[in-house]
């Protein structure tokens, strides 16, 4: 069971209060009309899927219902940092989760 720090509730909660939305920082194409099939495919379906540090969006579904970002190691499951949407990850971001 993961224990996740919600930066909006400012508290550490059990994993089953949350829903993982998927990889973070995937930018929606600015000019969709000009996109090639190749680029659309990459945007929609292709993911980094690393064995190690992964940046992902989590949704505090049964809590404050806010979305936020988490850097998590997919091998050790250690949560490295938690930060709000619109922010960039910083190694100093605090989470003792």
């Amino acid at each position, binding site marked *: 069971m993961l224990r996740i720090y919600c930066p909006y509730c400012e508290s550490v909660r059990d*994993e089953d209060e949350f829903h993982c939305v998927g990889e973070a920082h995937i930018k929606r194409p600015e000019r969709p009309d000009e996109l090639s*099939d190749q680029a659309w495919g990459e945007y929609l*379906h*292709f993911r980094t899927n690393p064995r190690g540090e992964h940046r992902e969006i989590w949704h505090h579904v049964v809590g404050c219902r806010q979305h936020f970002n988490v850097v998590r190691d997919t091998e050790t499951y250690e949560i490295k940092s938690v930060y709000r949407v619109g922010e960039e990850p910083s190694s100093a971001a605090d989470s003792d989760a």
Partner: protein
Amino acid sequence: MTQHYSFLQLIRQAINHHEGWKPAWNSVEPKDSYDIVVVGGGGHGLATAYYLAKNHGITDVAVLEKGWIGGGNTGRNTTIVRSNYLRDEAAHLYEFALKLWEGLSNELNFNVMFSQRGVLNVGHSLQDMRDIERRVNANLLNGIDGEVLGPSDIQKIVPLLDCSPQNRYPVLGASWQPRGGVARHDAVAWGYARAADRLGVDIVEHARVVEIPLERGSHSVEGVVIEHDGERKFIRARKVACVTAGNSGVLASLAGLKLPIESRPLQAFVSEPLKPCLDTVVMSNAVHGYLSQSDKGDLVIGAGTDGYNGYGQRGSFEIIEETAHAICELFPAFSRVRMNRQWGGIVDICPDACPIIGRMPVPGLYFNCGWGTGGFKATPGSGFVFAHTIAEDHPHPLAAPFGVERFHSGALIDEHGAAGVAH
């Protein structure tokens, strides 16, 4: 020379106190170069090597496995075999595999304990039943056996299943594929390893691929670098075929590629052994659990995947709770059964819940992955069509719709949710 397994051989060995059995295959030291290197010694990789040798006469082949043969998802799955998929492309591929299963023990001279005890996919709502009717009719049009059963027929097949109408999720009906069933997962890996070894394929265990170097000018594969016995070693190969399930993203990144795949743990449980009480396979999508009883008597129970990417082969606690709910809902009698073991395997999930079989944008590089939560049933067919695709450098007709290009063209094969449950 490998021993032929037969009743006579058994008698001969019994007379010698079973001391004359030879290893089923030889795990060898790798050579410096091969025509084809298969990365991943699971069922699919071993089957690929076997059919390369058997159907295409290509025996200068190595299977490189980072751990031990069958230690990945092949040895961790709940072994359900069926072919009642909705979409034509998927149905044809899985049915081709099911036909190979029916002759596999003879083909490999290894008892894979394939038991066609039938698979029930239970429906609990009107929408479930509409989907089931549609799927069974699609199956019949594709020449795949299937039947829609009502609660009273189901009750006859599975007396312990709670079919009472007052349940929160009442059993309204099911699809029934009599030719479906289960097989012995380890035996499939061992049987293919032994059969491939007999045809001259090199099986190398504890050899982890850590690099896939590309030629400078042509950008085609040069071979692989492995870590073996604490040392790094380059193995030249004309073609490299990756069959690494949950680690496919890692392998792709070694060649500078990305895949439309995410890796997550999927769990299974095994109970204490019970007297025979369940002689078929029961699956339910809505309450999300599926189970069968092994020949040893233990219940083999499958669950859902974790809700997030991960490479830890254990799985999340909340999935255990959900699965226990599902099993107790279906089989109240099992609520007091104790679980003996629990584990996870890393499954490679594609957006359309269908595999990726074929060439990659890098010349000489092939991938067979994305089988996710349901590839065991496809093992023989997957190896067969992938071997063809590699040998001919052209997709086998059954594999053609499953190229990675479909994620750019948009021709996805939407099996998600369409095929009973995902397994």
